[in-house]
């Protein structure tokens, strides 16, 4: 939420770090309405301009110029009836002026003028928004640059907001954005939605950026700064846009389903004192039924489109197993274990194997799961990952092998750098002493 994004500014004073390209912060109430219009129009404005100037960085600069003009004029004149068209008109004028200064070629200016005349914020511009998404997430950029550009151009966030969300200084983020724009221009990345064999990996890149944004927010939902959790909302908004603009792509729906189902549990993840509440102990009446409903329909859509085994759809299907269970005991662990098996094939990873082992232990008992975990230990892939010995310890407790369990808990405690988690693991290690050797 923008109020959430901007509210910390009063305390933190990042206003001093605002780079030249960005308009002044929108704290005065009159500017908040301008900022709200910007949120609505930014992506379409930039996308429409990019189609003509063929350079998203330049398009973004032009759009920012228009925003500056709006911030100067609207507080006095009021917001125009069609603010999007107003912004577009200003940006177009700047585009022509800029080109005039640069090339002084009348024919070129006339050509651009003609092209610009055709750009309106009509329904066609939606295709441009999709092109903008693919361009901002182009593999020529590093993943953090993709994420930053996406927030800047598609979500209409300010550089300092993005910097705060990613815990880096504003000048660092400003530089990252400038470099990213330059990289796109230098590489002459075409402003288009890829087709054919190129589509699948490029779509994966877009989906990956959106999910990374979601996870950045998700892992911080219990943190002190509400700005980072707001990334979950941004990611879901982007996911909804993507699913609406590319409705035939099953994984767009799969990702949206995954995010909505995970977000449905956000508010029950912590108790009144801020302690994490694990999935099985959560108060399920506090789960967000609206998001669950939306998530389940998005998952249905992904499956209808033949995307049942997509990476995101499978994870969404796992999340759906939890969402559908009215109590923790109702959880269909057999199905979850099977789904992890599918996931391990489409997106092999030792962490997924570990999750599968946990599901297998719930479905088939600790002995079956221990075999999977021991196989993982042998691969040494998760040698520094504290949850591997933690899960193994838990299984050993259930199998009444307390001495081995204690050693595993202690090993896990030594591997984590989270104090609270370490305390919990050491407490469980001690508890093993109280259990008679079996």
């Amino acid at each position, binding site marked *: 939420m923008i109020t959430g994004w901007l509210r910390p500014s009063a305390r933190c004073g990042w206003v001093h770090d605002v780079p030249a390209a960005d308009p002044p912060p929108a704290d005065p109430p009159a500017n908040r309405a301008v900022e709200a219009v910007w949120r609505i129009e930014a992506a379409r404005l930039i996308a429409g301009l990019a189609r003509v100037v063929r350079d998203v960085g330049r398009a973004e600069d032009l759009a920012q110029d228009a925003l500056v003009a709006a911030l100067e004029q609207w507080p006095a004149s009021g917001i125009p009836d069609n603010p999007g068209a107003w912004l577009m008109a200003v940006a177009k004028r700047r585009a022509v002026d800029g080109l005039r200064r640069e090339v002084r070629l009348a024919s070129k200016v006339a050509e651009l003028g003609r092209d610009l005349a055709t750009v309106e914020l009509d329904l066609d511009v939606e295709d441009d928004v999709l092109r903008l998404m693919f361009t901002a997430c182009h593999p020529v950029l590093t993943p*953090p640059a993709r994420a930053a550009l996406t927030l800047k151009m598609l979500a209409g966030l300010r550089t300092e907001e993005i910097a705060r969300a990613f815990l880096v200084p504003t000048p660092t983020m400003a530089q990252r954005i400038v470099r990213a724009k330059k990289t796109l221009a230098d590489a002459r990345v075409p402003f288009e939605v890829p087709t054919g064999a190129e589509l699948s990996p490029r779509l994966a890149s877009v989906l990956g950026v959106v999910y990374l944004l979601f996870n950045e927010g*998700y892992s911080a939902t*219990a943190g002190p700064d509400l700005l980072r959790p707001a990334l979950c909302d941004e990611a879901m908004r982007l996911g909804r846009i993507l699913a609406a603009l590319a409705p035939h792509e099953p994984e767009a729906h799969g990702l949206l389903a995954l995010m909505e189902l995970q977000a449905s549990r*956000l508010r029950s993840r912590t108790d009144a004192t801020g302690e994490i509440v694990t999935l099985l102990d959560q108060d399920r009446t506090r789960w967000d039924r609206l998001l669950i409903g939306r998530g389940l329909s998005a998952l249905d859509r992904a499956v209808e489109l033949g995307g049942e085994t997509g990476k995101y759809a499978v994870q969404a299907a796992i999340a759906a197993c*939890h969402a559908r269970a009215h109590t923790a005991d109702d959880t269909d662990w057999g199905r979850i274990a099977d789904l992890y098996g599918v996931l391990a094939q489409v997106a092999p990873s030792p962490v997924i194997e570990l999750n599968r082992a946990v599901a297998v232990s719930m479905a088939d008992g600790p002995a079956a799961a221990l075999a999977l975990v021991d196989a993982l230990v042998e691969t040494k892939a998760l040698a520094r990952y504290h949850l591997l010995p933690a899960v193994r310890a838990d299984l050993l407790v259930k199998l009444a092998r307390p001495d081995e369990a204690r050693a595993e808990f202690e090993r896990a405690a030594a591997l984590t750098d989270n104090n609270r988690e370490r305390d919990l693991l050491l407490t469980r290690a001690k508890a093993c002493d109280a259990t008679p050797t079996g």
Partner: protein
Amino acid sequence: MRVMVLGKATVESEAGQLPSMEALEAMGRYNEEVVKAGVLVAADGLHPSSRGVRVHFDGDDRTVVDGPFAETKELIAGYSILEVASLEEAVEWVKRSPNLMPGGVGEVEIRPIFEAADFGEVSEEVLAQADGVGELGRANVAKWRAEQGGN
């Protein structure tokens, strides 16, 4: 933030009169735009209050009162739920909505929905923990952090 947009009833909506085809089409185009902006998360229209009931609470007593209800302007004819960045953004979106009764008078009320954050902030260190699918996400984040070279 999430807001509920409450469309107030009119004499026409209470009479069960449907908006004109043109008005409905305009509303359809508007809804499509809001969906494609990733903002609309739910929307429904309500039957006139003549098809509704009220359950009146008085201590332990419950009395069921059949519609219709008199105070038309206070009744709700439909609602939508928007996920927006600010109340101002919700206002901007609602202002863009066509008037379902062109030329007519109507009112829409926007009310923010309570969120977890409204019930007090939570403490800080509670980041790392394992809950099924969430753990996969964190692994992805860790991988990504590694890729960006600790920046």
